[in-house]
């Protein structure tokens, strides 16, 4: 049964998150920065603790009880991840440190195998720096060129321009699914279909999608999807790179080391098959093990219900914040995740964030690692409130009280 929005019991959910009970400077915490990192439910914290108290061993290399158990926990999370994104095989799931590492892996290995001087990689103006800089590094090594899809005034990808950018030299499209600065949800099925019609593979930065939107990699048909555990209730230190079909077989290894080999001689090494081929060295086993608890928590609550709840919060916050004098919303696309970016006339976002923080309201202020996007909208920085399953209308009321205080201080 998929719970409906009305059945999302936020009070019960909040009780699962111990950190929501802390009182910064004696005031209740209003955490509106989940787009930076989410808070963790007790089940995830318990899984991490249990791993180190009862299950810790190194994986894939021992015959003893703990090695076997740790390997089992690691593999269980891989299977849970496969199920969560509806991948065909767990061999399509590689664990990384985070989204950034997943993108760097593809940029490095794909670049080495398939990119030649003059080839083009298509990104967009709304990318996080982590989906720009790895491609620039790869372009420097290969002689490729980066092209960027422009963003419209409301903060959507200009899909006509996108189609026109694709040509015989385009080797890969690398776009974000959900913008971390704007909240825009991009039409990824259409984006992928347009590229595939020209035989061009697509990588999606799913960092802001995986926590909020049900992912079905079979439906969207993207070639690569990267996301981070810590933004979706999991621990830091674990990310996922999904690659469709045989992509992992076709790419050369990213890092060399233990666990990614079949046999090694001084002269020559043969590599293990994916996913091991891309998981050199001892990974963050404990975090991977605990990540399963995060996936299971999201599955229990239901991403459809979470999404519906966030949409209610977003609508309320959008209406109230945009009604304030001198406020400009950055990112007003019809399809948005729970992200509200804005500027206030005469007040820098840092000052907004500092004043809100004094009221226990945690938001993000700055360029959000999207400087090209800030340049596009003519602002160096924005204030950003982001919502998740544990947020309430109370949090938005606290945000509004804080913003009134900002006006008091700055006039």
């Amino acid at each position: 049964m998929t719970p409906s929005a009305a059945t999302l019991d936020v009070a019960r959910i909040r009780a699962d998150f111990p950190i929501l009970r802390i009182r910064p400077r004696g005031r209740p915490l209003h955490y509106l920065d989940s787009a930076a990192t989410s808070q963790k439910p007790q089940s995830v914290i318990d899984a991490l603790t249990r791993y180190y108290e009862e299950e810790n061993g190194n994986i894939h290399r021992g015959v003893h009880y703990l090695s076997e158990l740790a390997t089992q926990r690691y593999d269980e999370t891989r299977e849970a991840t496969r199920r969560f994104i509806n991948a065909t095989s767990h061999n399509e799931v590689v664990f990384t440190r985070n989204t950034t590492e997943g993108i760097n892996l593809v940029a490095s290995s794909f670049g080495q195998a398939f990119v030649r001087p003059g080839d083009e990689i298509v990104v967009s103006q709304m990318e996080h720096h982590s989906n720009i800089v790895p491609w620039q590094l790869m372009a420097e090594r290969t002689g490729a060129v980066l092209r960027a899809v422009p963003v419209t005034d409301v903060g959507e990808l200009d899909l006509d321009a996108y189609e026109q950018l694709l040509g015989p030299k385009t080797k890969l499209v690398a776009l974000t699914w959900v913008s971390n600065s704007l909240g825009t949800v991009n039409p990824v099925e259409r984006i992928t279909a347009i590229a595939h019609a020209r035989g061009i593979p697509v990588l999606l930065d799913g960092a802001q999608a995986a926590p909020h939107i049900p992912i079905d990699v079979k439906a969207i048909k993207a070639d690569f999807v990267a996301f981070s555990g810590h933004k979706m209730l999991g621990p830091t230190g674990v990310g996922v790179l999904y690659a469709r079909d045989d992509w992992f077989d076709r790419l050369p290894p990213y890092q060399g080391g233990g666990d990614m080999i079949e046999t090694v001689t001084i002269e020559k090494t043969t590599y293990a098959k994916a996913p091991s081929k891309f998981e050199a060295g001892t990974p963050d086993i404990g975090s991977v093990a605990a990540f399963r608890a995060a996936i299971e928590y999201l599955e229990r609550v239901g991403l459809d219900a979470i999404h519906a709840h966030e949409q209610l919060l977003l609508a309320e916050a959008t209406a109230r914040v945009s009604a304030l004098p001198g406020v400009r919303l950055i990112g007003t696309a019809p399809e948005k995740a729970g992200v509200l970016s804005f500027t206030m006339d005469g007040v820098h976002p840092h000052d907004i964030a500092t004043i809100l923080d004094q009221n226990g309201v945690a938001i993000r202020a700055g360029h959000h690692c999207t400087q090209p996007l800030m340049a596009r909208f003519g602002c160096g920085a924005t204030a950003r409130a982001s919502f998740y399953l544990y947020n309430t209308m109370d949090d938005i009321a606290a945000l509004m009280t804080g913003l009134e205080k900002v006006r008091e201080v700055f006039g």
Partner: protein
Amino acid sequence: MDLGALYEEVILDHNRSPRNWGEIPGARHVAGTNPLCGDKISLSVQVDGDTITDIKFTGEGCAISKASASMMTQAIKGKTKGEAEKLYEEFHGLVTGKASAPPDKSLGSLRAFAGVARFPTRVKCATMAWHALREATGNRQQAPDAGTSD
């Protein structure tokens, strides 16, 4: 915590109406940035012998960084490089809360930034202009690393 401790009236005033705003043609130009937030400042500094005869700035940033730059330009115009460095040290001690004695009288209105010491994430905002100045006067060889605590 009293926000007034951070946003003193004099700071808000300099934020609204920054003094010495602009560029000095032909002067030494130095850019300062805070890579963590993207704030930036452009200083132009006119030095005659050992004396800072004129200084102006432009840039974008928060109230703390803008007011700090504005008040710094007022404080150091006409000072020698050595005096400017001395003032920087006093100011740095003030905003990091490491000053051993009560704030030096020589800081004058810059003492309004004392509240910054209680907001560790904002120390860089207050010192950005000063780091750019030190680069311009040769009191510091290069811009500070993003990872430094000030």
